[in-house]
């Protein structure tokens, strides 16, 4: 693979301080109905070299959080209160205080966001080469040959034939090719952090696998620090070191991928896992989460999940729980997480590759 000659720092970034820290970040949108409280107090450290997945159902605030980090929110949005700190090579930047020109630089050279490969993520009248050149020029990179060389390397890295792609318009490319071009363009200025919003949604299965393999390579060989945003749990299981579950604008559980998938402690995380089948695992009875997500303009009191929660007690209806430690490097925001642990002792999740071999799995029809 072409990775060896891609000028990336391949030293172990895990030694370094957190490149990104979010402290008590809130985002609300002004609407006619009132304030939509899309993100409510998110605090998280992104470790150097790790990949963190944000999961949760539609409307839980995942994209809003990503957009807040690269400050691409619409004008109706405000980020108050909250602090976002970015660190690189001893520098420390208060992201929410960057001026517009500094912000543009930050977005390409430090923290790049890759949007879902919809056509509108591109300028439709520019060929791939022109898009790359525009971006490079805007960042004071005038040596055309150098830009071209870099772009060719990156396109090869994402397994596209540069000859075929470089002079193509976006609409001439398939969805999977567009997603890979976007990924290549986002790497043009060697950012330290990549945020990928629904990187595989709407792509065909075999194309999804190609993208997953590429992203694993960026993670494992290049030690990129990445945030994956997806409503698809499988993307988190395939790619993440740590997973954060979001519900109604908050992180309600945060832990290693294994903790989240095999030892969830928040009822919502457990609900999501029990709602999603695997293909190569055994046959398991699945369950839905009753009800629907809350109205973000008029949030219920207490734990925002309580109207849908099987573990809810009186306290849940009044006081909103904060994230507390439920295991090493594992936190959950639930008054009754111990009951969730007990429930899993009674009704274990039949998960993991080993479980498939020992087929103690239920094989009756759903009903």
């Amino acid at each position, binding site marked *: 693979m072409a990775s060896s000659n891609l000028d990336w720092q391949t030293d172990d970034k895990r030694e370094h301080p957190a490149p990104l820290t979010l402290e008590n970040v809130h985002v609300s949108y002004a609407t006619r109905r009132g304030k939509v409280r899309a993100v409510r107090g998110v605090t998280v450290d992104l470790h150097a070299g790790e990949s963190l997945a944000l999961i949760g159902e539609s409307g839980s605030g995942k994209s809003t959080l990503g957009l807040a980090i690269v400050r691409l929110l619409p004008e109706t949005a405000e980020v108050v209160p909250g602090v976002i700190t970015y660190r690189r090579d001893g520098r420390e930047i208060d992201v929410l205080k960057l001026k517009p020109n500094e912000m543009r630089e930050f977005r390409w050279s430090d923290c790049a966001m890759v949007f879902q490969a919809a056509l509108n993520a591109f300028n439709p009248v520019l060929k791939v080469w022109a898009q790359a050149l525009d971006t490079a020029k805007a960042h004071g990179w005038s040596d055309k040959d150098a830009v071209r060389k870099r772009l060719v390397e990156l396109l090869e890295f994402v397994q596209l034939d540069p000859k075929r792609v470089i002079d193509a318009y976006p609409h001439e490319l398939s969805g999977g090719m567009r997603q890979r071009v976007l990924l290549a363009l986002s790497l043009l200025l060697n950012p330290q952090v990549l945020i990928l919003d629904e990187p595989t949604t709407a792509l065909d299965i075999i194309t999804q696998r190609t993208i997953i393999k590429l992203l694993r390579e960026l993670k494992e060989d290049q030690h990129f620090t990445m945030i994956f945003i997806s409503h698809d749990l499988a993307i988190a299981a395939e790619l993440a070191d740590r997973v954060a579950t979001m519900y109604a604008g908050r992180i309600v559980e945060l832990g290693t991928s294994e903790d989240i998938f095999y030892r969830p402690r928040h009822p919502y995380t457990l609900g999501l896992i029990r709602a999603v089948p695997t293909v190569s695992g055994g046959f398991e009875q699945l369950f839905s989460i009753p009800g629907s997500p809350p109205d973000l303009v008029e949030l219920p009191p207490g734990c925002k999940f309580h109207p849908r929660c099987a573990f809810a007690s009186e306290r849940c209806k009044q006081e909103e729980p904060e994230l507390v430690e439920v295991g090493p490097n594992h936190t959950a925001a639930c008054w009754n997480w111990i009951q969730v642990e007990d429930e899993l002792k009674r009704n274990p999740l039949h998960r993991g590759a080993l479980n498939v071999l020992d087929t103690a799995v239920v094989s009756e029809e*759903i009903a």
Partner: protein
Amino acid sequence: MAPIIEVRNLTKQFGKGAEMVTAVDSVSFAIEPGETVCLVGESGCGKSTTGRMVAGLLEATSGEVIFEGKNIKQLDSAAFRRYRQTVQIIHQDPYSSLNPTQTIRQIITAPLLRHNKVKGKSAAEARALELLEVVDLTPARDVIDKYPHQLSGGQRQRVAVARALTVDPKFIVADEAVSMVDVSIRVSILTMLARLKKEFDVTFLFITHDLALAKYFAWQGRITVMYLGRIVEDGPTQRLITDPRHPYTQALLSAVPEADPELAHHKREIELRDAEIPSLLALPRGCTFHPRCPYFVAGQCDVAVPPLEALPEGGRVACPVRMGERISLLV
């Protein structure tokens, strides 16, 4: 038992001249009453086109759809009416399939009255309330006077199912029926559909691009895999998922992202010779998977279209090269 629906050499072409594509090519299968069959495959492989021909919404270019033992083109008008009521289709997009200017009451009672399923308004309302309960829209009285936009996506999909049930169907084509519904509530809709199988003897042709959903919904049924308009493999779900034989089925199953980290890291990697799917406008000769297939045999695969042949373990496979070989999908 006689099949409830059978298709023979069903073919659909769109466009003319150089732009002509064969979206569905000589597809044959039979579905018996009470069976659940999932049609899977990637975008554009012809799943919806097949479903629409089965439901009589689209005329085949050639081949036959057979209902109660007769080609639907040869049914007399009474039998044709029976066919159109017996076979219903539910679409992916509950937003566009429900008239936004009508209340749920109007949406459900209109077909009841039109098809003389009940006599009079109050009987229609009573039946509408019953059907809303059947699809778990409870309490039905709270829902019946709402407009579609006042309901969530999942609730709208339930209304679409209730509307299909007004004509007492025995066969439902569910085309990506839960694809647009959030994962947290998907299962409850699948469970509701599974209940219709038992309580109303409904047979399902369930179309999905999601193999995990197909496995779950048709665990006791069958899966049919399409690629570029043709069936490449079918068979009992449990055999097809654990012991796929067609190289395309294997590639698909090994590529599916798994919502389980350990499984995700133990899946076999199958390298295709070409990542891109060919265009329907320039289909490869012979087996259309041959330019991508890791087991390609020159002079064989690129010459004749391999026929679907019966597999002793159940189902059919269109690959003479590999149909006798097992591989494990977990390593």
